[in-house]
């Protein structure tokens, strides 16, 4: 199918895909927030969105939450104990591909600043922690465009867990890595799984060139750091109305 011409003539980059599913260019910007649960990245992403909107940029927010389709499959798989690391990983890739094809690539092509609360790196870290072949996982996500900026909110596991506890959200089975038999105790398993994830993230930070943000500072200081890193990306970028999605 022929791609429509980009409406905004800003510096255009090729859209990588599984070998040219779409060969076109996009003028938008992609900013990614990564980190453990309770690292404060969602708060920071929200504040960045507010700032961009107030400055008149066209910004779009999307987060890594499972669609109804996939979460119902996961629920069912859990009940029957059907899910393995491979199917789990593929399910999340399917879900992400759907979100990518709907909510990430179109706004990028329309010239929006797209803010992602978690991106492919979440899958890299999680699937590698579960024992999937890292090269294979990367290939799964080969269709995803590389971000312009990735912030990694680094916190000690204990701090992240305390924040999670304070939020009084129940820890879910897969979030705690209970399928990996790390421990019979949910909290214990959660802490150990988060430790594994953190190790993966720390490696990814080096190999993928994340901007590391030490997330134990106060919220205002963190946001100042984020904004000053985003500012250079917006040179010559068009401002217009704002569209918020996914909250």
């Amino acid at each position, binding site marked *: *199918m022929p791609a429509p011409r980009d409406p905004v003539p800003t510096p255009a980059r090729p859209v990588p*895909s*599984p*070998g*040219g*599913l*779409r060969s076109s260019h996009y003028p938008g910007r992609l900013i990614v927030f990564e980190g453990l649960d309770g690292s404060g990245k969602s708060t920071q992403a929200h504040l960045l969105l507010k700032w961009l909107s107030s400055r008149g940029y066209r910004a779009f927010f999307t987060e890594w939450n499972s669609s109804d*389709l996939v979460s*119902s*499959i996961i629920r*069912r*798989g859990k009940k029957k104990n*059907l*899910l*393995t*690391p*491979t*199917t789990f990983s*593929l*399910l999340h*890739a*399917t879900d992400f*591909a*759907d979100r*990518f*094809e*709907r909510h990430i690539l179109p706004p990028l092509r329309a010239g929006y600043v797209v803010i992602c609360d978690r991106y492919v790196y979440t899958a890299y870290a999680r699937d590698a922690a*579960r*024992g*999937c*072949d890292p*090269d*294979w996982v990367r*290939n*799964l996500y*080969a*269709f995803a465009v590389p971000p312009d900026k990735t912030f990694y909110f680094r916190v000690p596991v204990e701090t992240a867990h305390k924040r999670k506890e304070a939020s009084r959200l129940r820890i879910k089975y897969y979030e705690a890595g209970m399928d990996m038999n790390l421990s019979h105790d949910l909290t214990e398993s959660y802490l150990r799984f988060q430790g594994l994830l953190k190790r993966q993230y720390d490696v990814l930070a080096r190999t993928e060139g994340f901007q590391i943000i030490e997330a134990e500072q106060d919220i205002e200081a963190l946001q100042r750091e984020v904004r000053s890193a985003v500012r250079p990306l917006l040179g010559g970028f068009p401002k217009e109305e704002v569209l918020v999605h996914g909250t």
Partner: protein
Amino acid sequence: MAPRKEETPSGAKKRDGRLFAWHRRESRNKVEKLGFNNYGTRLPGIAPESLRGHLIVIEGADGSGRTTECAMLKEYLEVQGHAVLETGLRRSNLVSEQIDQAKQGHVLGATTMALFYAVDFADQLENKIVPALAAGSIVLSDRYIFTLMARAVVRGASRQWAQHLYGFAIRPDMTILLETRPEILLHRAFGRYGSLDYWESGMDLGISRDRFESFFRYQSLLKTEFDWMTKTYGFVKVNANRTPMEVHRDVRSSVQRLLEGARLETFR
């Protein structure tokens, strides 16, 4: 990591006996060297040497007589005293319902659909095929990753991406490709359904609004992929423009040779 490609020795293509001897030797080398018998990606939690059974795949377009051949081969193998598990695509109970839903609504993009099929395949592989192979059964698969790869590539994915995506699949001991002329497929489709199926005509590709023309062009695109895979993966081609019994005779003799080869190996 580059996907592992196999080179077929020249001249061996026509003589499938030599071809599958080579194919078996290749897979055995790989198992010994790298400790796996799949296409390059290890499957977490599965010891490849524990899979004692045989995996036989029958590939071919809709209407090439796959299902009939599978049933006949199963019958034959069971008479010979083998435990046989018959399996196919899109029969897993994890996601088949959701795939049907998605197909109805035409809502998912090509990449998403390709990955969705991969979930379904992985689920069947790990929950049905692997346990049966571990128990020493012969698993007879009515279609395998090759159909899924061909469909994805025809819809715009790269061969490399598709190969790597299915890198976790267990390498079949033998893949039989039933080759049929498109005209025959056409007549069989009319005979069975009275019309051409939307998906089997590749209408979602938007090649042509005319279903008849779309069918021919879609089948020829698929054929290109299968020809390429025949070279890459070493399929045993069987001419399926004949009666089921004639085709069965060819299929059976290939499978017999495979199983005899395996028996000799255990004696050694």
